């Protein structure tokens, strides 16, 4: 006699689970929402962090990582003399792979908006003499007007850093704009954009060396050198920079690489990312518990249906798979919703911050994988309970 076997086609099994979810729409959507929120958090955190990094890397690319900065150190017993020797720039130029050097000297004079301003209110703005090559060395750009050059650098003309301009209340350059330095008026010829490689220059007003010598003070030994070197030997140049800048006391020279600060910023954002990812994980766990809860309730409510299906020939295995697939469908539905939401949040964030949009494929993959895993985890126990129910017990309750 032929053996009689129960079997369900796979598509039908999925359909049965899908119909069950559809006929309880509100509950399904709400419990999927819990997972969606968790997945959206994870995806958007990864997306935003990747976009910010892409932005920083773009910036680094543009700015170059081959800039070095040599500064007179504030070592012990140096007294007030915090300058480099006058010969520093010439010494550094002797290093073969050095492409360019720009010299900057910090001046003691304060910068005022006009002759009527209180001379003690400097608003943290410092005055510096700078060479014409400084802007190029820092890969900077002008927001308004032009930078100092050899022609106008001899006259009382000034260029404002972005922050300095803001604090002075100046937004445009019209040929009459001026600031008050050392008892005379200086014509403002330009305002710089922010300089990511030299944030302290943002808070400075720059004048030419010739003008500084003529109108401010005559000791113009450099306080800082900006050095562009061949990219592949930057480290070697850095190691000899101090000795070349100040052969007598190389230990008094601080050498640094401004792009390191930007890289550190990118790394710091990674730390934040881990923190937020942790929050996303907590949201996912809460979502999983919610789904498991909904599934357990569903099994209790649908004892009659379980009994009926057993009477129609379903095995325990069929019942188990039905509820497991339901949980996974619920969770994956939430996952898809969450990926879309997370991508949307990332998109919004990058548009708002004018950053490049980058959504790592891994974020999408992990998000969906997490959803499947949660579905299985949340479904195993309720499905086992449903399968364990004996048909007579299940039918009695209906």
């Amino acid at each position, binding site marked *: *006699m032929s*053996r*009689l*076997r*129960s*079997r*369900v*086609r796979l*598509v*039908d099994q999925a*359909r*049965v689970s899908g*119909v069950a979810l*559809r*006929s309880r729409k509100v509950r399904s959507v709400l419990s999927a929402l819990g997972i969606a929120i968790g997945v959206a958090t994870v995806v958007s955190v990864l997306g935003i962090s990747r976009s910010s990094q892409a932005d920083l890397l773009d910036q680094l690319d543009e700015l170059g990582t081959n800039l070095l900065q040599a500064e007179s150190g504030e070592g012990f017993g140096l007294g007030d003399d915090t300058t480099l020797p006058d010969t520093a720039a010439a010494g550094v130029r002797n290093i073969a792979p050095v492409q360019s050097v720009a010299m900057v000297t910090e001046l003691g004079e304060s910068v005022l908006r006009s002759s009527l301003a209180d001379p003690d209110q400097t608003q943290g703005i410092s005055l510096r003499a700078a060479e014409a090559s400084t802007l190029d060395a820092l890969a900077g750009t002008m927001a308004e007007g032009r930078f100092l050059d050899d022609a106008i650098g001899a006259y009382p003309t000034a260029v404002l850093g972005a922050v300095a301009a803001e604090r002075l209340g100046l937004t445009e350059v019209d040929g009459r704009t001026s600031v008050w330095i050392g008892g005379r008026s200086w014509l403002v010829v330009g305002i710089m954009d922010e300089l990511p490689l030299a944030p302290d220059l943002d808070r400075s007003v720059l004048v030419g060396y010739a003008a500084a010598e003529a109108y401010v003070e005559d000791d113009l030994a450099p306080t800082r050198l900006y050095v562009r070197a061949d990219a592949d030997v930057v480290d070697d140049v850095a190691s000899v920079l101090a000795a070349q800048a100040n052969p007598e006391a190389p230990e008094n020279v601080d050498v640094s690489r401004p792009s390191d600060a930007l890289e550190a910023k990118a790394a710091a954002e990674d730390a934040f990312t881990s923190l937020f990812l942790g929050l996303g994980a907590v949201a996912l766990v809460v979502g999983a518990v919610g789904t498991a809860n909904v599934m357990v309730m569903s099994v209790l409510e649908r004892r*009659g*249906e379980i*009994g*009926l*299906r*057993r*009477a*129609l*020939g*379903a*095995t*325990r*295995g*069929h019942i188990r798979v039905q509820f497991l697939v339901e949980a996974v469908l619920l969770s994956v539905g939430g996952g898809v919703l969450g990926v879309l939401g997370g991508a949307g949040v990332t998109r919004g964030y990058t548009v708002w911050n004018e950053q490049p949009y980058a959504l790592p494929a891994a974020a999408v993959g992990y998000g969906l994988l997490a959803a499947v895993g949660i579905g299985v985890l949340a479904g195993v126990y309720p499905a086992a309970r449903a399968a364990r129910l*004996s*048909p*007579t017990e299940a*039918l009695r309750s*209906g």
Partner: protein
Amino acid sequence: MSGPVLDVRDVRKSYGDLEVLHGISLTIGHGEQVAVVGPSGSGKSTLLHIVGTLDRPTSGTVVVDDRDTSEMSEAELAGLRSHRIGFVFQSFHLLDGVSATDNVAQGLLYRGVRRHERTHRAREALRRVGLGHRLEHDPRLMSGGERQRVAIARALLNRPAIVFADEPTGNLDSRSGAEVLALLGELHAQGTTVVVITHEHEVAAAMQRRVEIRDGLVHADSLASVAGGLR
């Protein structure tokens, strides 16, 4: 397939120390229409679950369609139910929010029949029970009599060797009950073997044969009284 559809031999069922069925023997042949009657607590529902292979007897054998169920695994019993047995319940057990056709089509789900054919046969079955005009209706919007007819269509879909109906009119008003009884009569006329469990005398009276269960034993069997000497 020459033997009886259902052959029950000395079935006992105990829950702990409490014995509910004390050794029931019963044979039902092809095309019979049988009412199993008895007061509540007589053990008739337990008997229905056991002969329907939803539960196992503590001792004794149940042979359905020439297959001895005592040697079958759980999965084999499920297979037997999906192919050879149909159920009708007092509370219908229809899926809410699912059309009448799809509800009936569930009857072939666990035989691996494709959706297209399931749907086709479900419509046919619904027409057979007089619900051709209600194919896409949600059962929640139907009367009790209509709902039970949907359930009967579902039970018939796998062309079972035997249909068990547990108080099929228990939740219906008398008019709907009569409707369902008439339908069961038609099925009998077409050759379906039907066993109805009931405590209602009008239902029992409408059946061809009556088996009375009392205190876990067969108290009376109208067939035995007709064919008395045979046993």
